[in-house]
């Protein structure tokens, strides 16, 4: 297989406009005759469904939850970036582009990232028109804040619920098209398989989660916006049902998977409290704008936090990175927290936490100002931990949060399966080896509102389609295969629960393939995952039947895929013999323990092709060419 990113020629700033113009169009009359399946109703999926329906296509939209409004995009707190330069602080499309490329440690495509920066402004316009209540200044104009290590204020926000508000905007657009009959909504459906006809993606197999019925659906193109795979780690900030199943099935059908080892560990999460913990809660990284991160200078200091005097506190981020201080990018902040805890300087019951202290901010600005900025976050923290952050420092620790890797897509957002488009977190395209704060919302909506609706037209206009229906033999076969997989899961009747396996997989990955990796640990992880997978298929217990609402069965299917996919993360991490962004291999670091890239050998996208069960996947390389930015060692000193 030859990867062709189809990046248009010409100067960077003109690529997208020119491409736009060159693209074939589908006539309005023909759009009515074309069916598109959209999987997922998060920011990417909902915005794509709505926009495609507005254009005139017939859409079938699928989601796992009981309502499209509940997709996990809803949990994004901080904000959405755009290069509006409303703050007049020197922002521009070019700067947003450059920050994103640099933040991603030069492992993303210039053309894609520039396009994203260009359309970022349209996203804000559209969201405001939809009624998203962004924060505003006293004059009634939009407010901005600086976020996640950016030196300009370009982040638009709705309190701590920006993702929710943006998603409700997209959901409104989706609902409007459902009412118009242009979208048919299928909630509580799980994707079990893709159906390829003549090597083109033409349909899906889904399970109706309420009745257990296996259904097949046909279309002329398929859009996958099913989110990221970070729940492979079990404990993560993702929702409980976030999964890799749809993406992994696409991978098995021939879609290459790119950079799976780029997994973001978010620095400001509430620490793990015990073995029954089911998920981790993110505290918006906006907290780092005013909070100061510290640990006790002496390892093993067991005094209560308020009793540790100023002189015995190590503000390690401020000391190590004077220019950025507490605002260094996520990967840097996370890794430093781990380093401090590894030295025994961690705080809290488990010693796996660092302090995020608002004492100085409260002294400087007063309690009321801090409450206005972070009140809801402080409240959330107190609800979960029972501690009051106005009185004693918050305790935070990194947690798995976001997947930069994803299905490989070209400039059109099409995977290596013709007709299968991948958008939002499910694709790999824009964040390189590390995503900057407030960029995920931008990418999800950018893909859905302003990129995919054009590029999918180009595909549909230029491709001749044979007629397929959901009753064709290819569909029946796929349905049968899915059914037999369900039956085999139900018939194992072993002694360990699904969650038990998932937790073990998560801890293997967290320990061996988390914030700090090395070859030895990675090799061990690969073996452990293989053994665990083998045991799973012999010893898992899944109660109930497949013909009913069966949440254990749902989870079993997802964990079976996590067990396969977890190994792919490790394989990719092993193959990338450098450190970059979120991927930190101890063998490749500078003298100051910073990630050391190897641009000579690894300035590429690693795309993996499925070679068959229990076979090493085939490696494909998409070299990354940087014509407009100079590759530099990231420095936040």
């Amino acid at each position, binding site marked *: 297989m030859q990867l062709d990113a189809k990046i248009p020629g010409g100067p960077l700033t003109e690529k997208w406009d020119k491409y736009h113009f060159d693209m074939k169009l589908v006539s309005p009359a023909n759009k009515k005759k074309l069916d598109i399946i959209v999987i997922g109703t998060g920011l990417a999926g909902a915005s794509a469904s709505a926009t495609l329906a*507005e254009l005139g296509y017939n859409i079938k939209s699928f989601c796992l*939850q009981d309502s499209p409004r509940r997709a996990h995009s809803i949990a994004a707190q901080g904000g959405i970036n755009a290069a509006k330069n409303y703050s007049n602080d020197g922002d521009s499309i070019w700067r947003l582009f450059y920050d994103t490329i640099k933040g991603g440690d030069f492992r993303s495509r210039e053309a894609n990232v520039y396009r994203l920066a260009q359309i970022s402004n349209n996203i804000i316009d559209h969201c405001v028109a939809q009624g998203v209540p*962004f924060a505003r200044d006293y004059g009634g104009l939009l407010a901005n804040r600086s976020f996640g290590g950016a030196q300009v204020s370009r982040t638009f926000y709705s309190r701590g619920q920006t993702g929710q508000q943006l998603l409700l905007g997209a959901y409104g657009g989706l609902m409007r098209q459902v009412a118009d009959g242009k979208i048919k909504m299928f909630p509580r459906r799980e994707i079990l398989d893709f159906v390829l006809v003549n090597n083109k993606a033409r349909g899906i197999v889904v399970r109706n989660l309420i009745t257990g019925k296996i259904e097949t659906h046909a279309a002329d193109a398929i859009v996958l916006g099913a989110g990221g795979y970070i729940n492979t780690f079990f404990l993560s900030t993702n929702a409980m049902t976030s999964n890799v199943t749809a993406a992994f099935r696409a991978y098995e059908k021939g879609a290459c998977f790119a950079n799976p080892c780029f997994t973001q560990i978010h620095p400001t999460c509430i620490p793990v409290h015990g073995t029954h913990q089911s998920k981790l809660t993110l505290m918006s990284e906006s907290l780092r704008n005013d909070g100061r991160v510290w640990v006790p200078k002496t390892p093993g200091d067991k005094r209560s936090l308020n009793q540790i005097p100023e002189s015995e506190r190590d503000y390690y981020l401020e000391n190590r990175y004077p220019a950025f201080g507490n605002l260094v990018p996520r990967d840097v902040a996370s890794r430093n927290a781990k380093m401090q805890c590894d030295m025994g300087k961690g705080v809290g019951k488990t010693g796996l936490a660092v302090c995020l202290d608002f004492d100085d901010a409260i002294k400087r600005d007063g309690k009321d100002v801090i409450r206005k900025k972070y009140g809801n976050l402080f409240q959330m923290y107190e609800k979960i931990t*029972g501690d009051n952050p106005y009185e004693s420092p918050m305790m935070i620790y990194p947690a798995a949060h976001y997947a930069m890797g994803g299905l490989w897509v070209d400039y059109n957002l099409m995977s290596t399966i013709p007709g299968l488009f991948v958008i939002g977190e499910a694709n790999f395209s824009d964040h390189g080896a590390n995503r900057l704060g407030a960029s995920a919302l931008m990418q999800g909506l950018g893909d859905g509102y302003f990129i995919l609706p054009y590029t999918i037209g180009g595909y549909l206009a230029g491709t001749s389609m044979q007629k397929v229906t959901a009753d064709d033999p290819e569909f029946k076969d796929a349905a049968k295969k899915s059914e037999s997989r369900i039956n085999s899961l139900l018939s194992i009747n072993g002694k360990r629960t699904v969650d038990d396996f998932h937790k073990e997989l998560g801890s293997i990955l967290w320990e061996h393939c988390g914030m700090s990796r090395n070859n030895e640990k990675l090799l061990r992880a690969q073996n452990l995952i293989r053994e665990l997978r083998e045991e799973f298929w012999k010893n898992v*217990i899944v109660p109930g039947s497949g013909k009913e*609402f069966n949440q254990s069965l749902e989870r079993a299917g997802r964990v079976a895929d996590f067990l396969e996919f977890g190994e792919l993360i490790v394989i990719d991490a092993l193959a990338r013999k450098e450190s970059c962004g979120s991927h930190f291999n101890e063998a490749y670091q500078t003298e100051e323990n910073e990630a050391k890239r190897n641009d000579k050998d690894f300035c590429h996208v690693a795309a993996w092709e499925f070679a068959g069960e229990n076979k090493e996947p085939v490696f494909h390389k998409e070299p990354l060419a940087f014509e407009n930015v100079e590759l530099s060692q990231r420095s936040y000193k």
Partner: protein
Amino acid sequence: MISTTDKKNINLTLKIWRQKGPDNKGNLETYHANDISTDMSFLEMIDVINERLTLEGKDPVAFDHDCREGICGMCGAMINGRAHGPEKGTTLCQLHMRHFADGDTIVIEPWRSRAFKIIKDLAVDRSPLDKIIQAGGYISVNAGQAPDANAIPIPQETAETAMDAAECIGCGACVASCPNASAMLFVGARISHLALLPQGKPEAAKRVQVMINEMDELLFGNCSNHRECEAECPKEISITNIARLNREFIKSGFF
């Protein structure tokens, strides 16, 4: 309430509503939850019960949940007769066991309303809420049509009031806690959010009419101003939004 510093484990008796499917009869069944850490969330406590039931070869308790950080609106059940449990402004997933005492008996029932059918155990079908939004709970704008985001200034106070209403997570606790199973707070929140903003005004009259008609058709009850919804809403959305809905309705119906 147990003090937050006291981290001892507790034993509880649970009475959980079990119902195989929408058409089956259900009943409360008793389970013992022993050695529950007070740091656990309520849903993590049910996870523990479910793990045990699974290993015993029994059917685990079905319940809806997803984000577990109080924003997706997927979880929810009546805990001792209170929607999302006894804590104010809290979803069930954010309710922690430190609010219960050793030896407590907890009755767990699904949301009950004629409009919400039970799917299984504690999981209910809340799609009627989506249907109300489908009727007109949006601003009609196509991608590409929007003017510059700063073209229309919106007073900060208006934006904040709209945001207060927009925080609704669509969990259905208002319906569940209302003695009349009315959805007026849900509808009021959406109407308020959109009617307050200049972008939502062109469609305001039509929107309130169609949404109220849809709400009535779906057989939700009528609002009697009991204010239980406001007291139970995990996002603490105020009934001033219901008053605004009433105003919008009067405006659209008579003027």
